[in-house]
């Protein structure tokens, strides 16, 4: 199978010579849910932002479905950043039409059904909704696209446990069987059973890239416990 996400020797140096990613390479095929795991400041967000074209690497290349980062890759990536990104003056309904306007793969019916499940009022302005509800709306928008690559940066951080389960089920139910889901989180135990593969990243370097089941068998431990061992302070 062809790789869906290819990161080739990417480095990123921030101001004050802080090395966020150091000659980082990885190749991921479709049809799996991958956990991108690492402590704060390990380079997870930097990598995610570069795949989405929000940051430009100092060196190296990134390909999504064989194409370099650009308009063509943005069409097939559905990205959930770790912050809320909409104009808070907009209503939920206006946001739905915004997505429908710009993304050909946006499924309006699916989004409306999910919002109804979560009890979100579509006529409400975003600024009137609680932070948790805003995050739910954003996740619904992102998961209502039929994308090839979903990138979810801390998708369950701010929502309550009940919604957390609904969201994880949504991710599992909705993703394209040929697609790839990349989830960055520090709430490992919550997503552990969802993951097919785990990637550990530390100080901008890849330190582990393993099938989740193989990893558990080899180390006779849960991913959560392995993470704690590897990143012990």
């Amino acid at each position: 199978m062809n790789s869906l996400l290819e990161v080739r020797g990417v480095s990123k140096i921030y101001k004050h010579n802080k090395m966020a990613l150091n000659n980082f390479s990885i190749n991921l095929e479709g049809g799996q849910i991958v956990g991108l795991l690492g402590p704060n400041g390990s380079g997870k967000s930097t990598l995610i932002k570069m795949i989405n074209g929000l940051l430009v690497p100092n060196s190296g290349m990134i390909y999504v479905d064989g194409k370099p980062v650009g308009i063509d890759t943005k069409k097939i990536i559905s990205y959930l950043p770790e912050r809320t990104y909409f104009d808070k003056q907009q209503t939920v309904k206006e946001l739905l039409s915004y997505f429908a306007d710009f993304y050909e793969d946006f499924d309006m019916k699916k989004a409306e059904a999910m919002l109804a499940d979560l009890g979100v009022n579509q006529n409400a302005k975003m600024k009137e909704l609680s932070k948790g509800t805003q995050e739910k709306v954003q996740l619904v928008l992102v998961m209502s696209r039929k994308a090839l690559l979903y990138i979810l940066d801390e998708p369950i951080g701010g929502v309550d446990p009940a919604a957390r389960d609904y969201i994880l089920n949504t991710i599992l139910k909705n993703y394209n069987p040929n697609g790839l889901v990349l989830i960055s989180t520090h709430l490992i135990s919550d997503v552990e059973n969802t993951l097919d593969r785990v990637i550990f990243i530390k100080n901008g370097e890849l330190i582990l890239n393993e099938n989740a089941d193989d990893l558990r068998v080899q180390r006779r431990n849960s991913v959560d416990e392995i993470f704690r061992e590897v990143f012990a302070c």
Partner: protein
Amino acid sequence: MLGKLLKYDMKAISKFLIIVHAALLGVAVIISFMASYYSKGSKSNTSFSVNLENGIGSAIFLILIIIAIVIFIGAYYGTYIISASRYYKNIYSDEGYLLNTLPVSKDKILLSKIIMATIWGIADIVVIIISFMILFKVTPSKISSVLRTAVTSDGETFWSMWGSLIIVLIVTFIIQTIVSIITIYFSITIGDVFFGHRVVGAIVSYVVISFIVGITSGLISAGFSSSHAFNHEPDSMEAAVKAMQGIKVVGTRLMIAEIVFMIIIGAVMYFLTRYMLNKKLNLE
């Protein structure tokens, strides 16, 4: 996609600007009415021949004039400030995480924001001119009759004498508006790339760029005036007419030179902004 981007850009900034401009027209109408009320009895029909013996009336009138001036200035600068803030917020704040991941080119994002601000920049001046016309009770038919019938000293009509210069002036104004907007966006983008602090960086860049552009533009004007020196007083009617025609010709040429200069500056800044949005975007 450009149309869709423009739709959302216009929607985002228009609400506030419509209110400001409606207020501007409203105040102009109120002042105009008050002026005719207080000037009843006096023969003049312009707004500013108010009967100043009526103390309260003139105080209210003065306050309204001040309010009008504040709204005039507010509307003019407000348009630019709101466009700048939309550009900054939409591209560089959290909203940038959505805008910059849309499958659209940076060209379209930039063009949409330039068109948005240009539409409002021109609307701004049109509304201000209409407000002045309401204040001074000037009707469009009065203006056009002046343009058609007023005759200059050598028998030409006002329009045939000055028309070309007026058209060049209008074109200059439109291009000036577009270039001012590009300068603002360019400054914000430079501020992001070269300075740690985006807002301060943007303001510093704007001041420096405006200074350089202003000096260069001044040098162009100076060059033109010195090459067509008007250093002697016209001593006859004929000489005066000649001098006027000279001013017209030189003025038109000067404006065209300024237009070319601004187009070049605007294009350079546009491409640099686009380059930086493509290659130097840093949403940390």
